[in-house]
C-alpha cells in the first residue's frame, strides 16, 4: 500500500529536458531579434523670425554658408562666399574662425532641394569647431 503511493507521486514529476529546450529557444530568439540602439546626439539651431531677415546685418562677425543639392550642382553641397567648398576645407576654416571667437554667427542657407544629410553634416562640423550661434534659413 505504502509502496504504491510513492510510485504515483514519482510519476507526476515533470521532465526537464523539453523545458530547457524551450528556454534556450527563447533565449536565442531574443538574442537574435534584439537590436541594439544607436546613441544619438542633438544639434541645436535657431530659426530666424520671418520679419527679422534684416536683423543679422547689424552684426559684424557673420559667416554665410549655402547648402545645396550636390547631385544637381556638383561639389560636396556646400558653398562659402559663392565658392563651392569641400567639407574638410570648411571644417578647417570654421575651426580657424572659432579659434578667434566662438560668438561668430553662422548663417546656414539651405535650398529646398538640398538633402537633410548635408545640413546635419554642416551642423556637426560647427559643433566640432565649437560654434554655437547657428541659424538656419531656407531659400
Amino acid at each position, binding site marked *: 500500500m505504502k509502496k504504491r503511493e510513492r510510485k504515483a507521486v514519482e510519476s507526476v514529476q515533470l521532465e526537464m529536458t523539453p523545458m530547457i529546450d524551450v528556454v534556450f529557444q*527563447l533565449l536565442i530568439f531574443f538574442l537574435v531579434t534584439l537590436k541594439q540602439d544607436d546613441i544619438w546626439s542633438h544639434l541645436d539651431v535657431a530659426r530666424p*523670425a520671418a520679419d527679422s531677415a534684416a536683423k543679422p546685418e547689424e552684426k559684424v562677425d557673420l559667416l554665410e554658408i549655402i547648402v545645396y543639392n550636390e547631385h544637381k550642382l556638383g561639389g560636396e553641397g556646400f558653398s562659402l562666399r559663392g565658392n563651392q567648398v569641400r567639407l574638410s576645407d570648411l571644417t578647417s576654416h570654421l575651426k580657424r574662425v572659432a579659434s578667434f571667437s566662438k560668438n561668430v554667427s553662422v548663417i546656414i542657407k*539651405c535650398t529646398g532641394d538640398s*538633402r537633410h544629410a548635408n545640413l546635419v553634416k554642416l551642423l556637426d562640423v560647427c*559643433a566640432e569647431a565649437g560654434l554655437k550661434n547657428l541659424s538656419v534659413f531656407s531659400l
Partner: protein
Amino acid sequence: MKRKLEDPTLDMTPMIDVVFQLIIFFVVTVTMSKELNRDIKLEQGPHGPEIGSEQDSRTFEIEVDKRGWISTRNVQLTKGRLEEILQSRYNKYGSFPVLIRGDFRTEHRDIRAVMDICTKVGLWKVSFVAIKVKATS
C-alpha cells in the same frame, strides 16, 4: 535509500516563475522600442552633445521620413494636426524643446515645413537628431 534518491530532484516552480518573468520583460520592452519609426536613417553627427537620460520630459520629437511624411511616436500626422498639437502644448507649458528626426535623404523643403510650423507656434529653437555612436550589431 529511496529517500536519498528523491532528494536531488529540482523544484520546478521557481524556474517557471523566472521564465514567465523573462517573457513578460521582453514582451514589454519590445513593444516600447517600436515607438520610433525604424525607416528613418539618420546622418552621423559625432560631435553633437549626447541625448542622455536627463532629457527634458517635455521634449517633443518629430519624425520626418525620406518622403517628407511627418510622424511622432510612429503616428502619422498632417501639417495641420502637428500645428494643433504643438500649439496646445505651447499654450500648456510655454516653450519646450523640439527634436527633429529627419532621414538623411529628406529634402530640406520637408524639414523646412516642420520648422516653419514650429516657428509659427513660437518655438524658435529646434534640434536635429544625429547618430553619435553607431550600435555595434
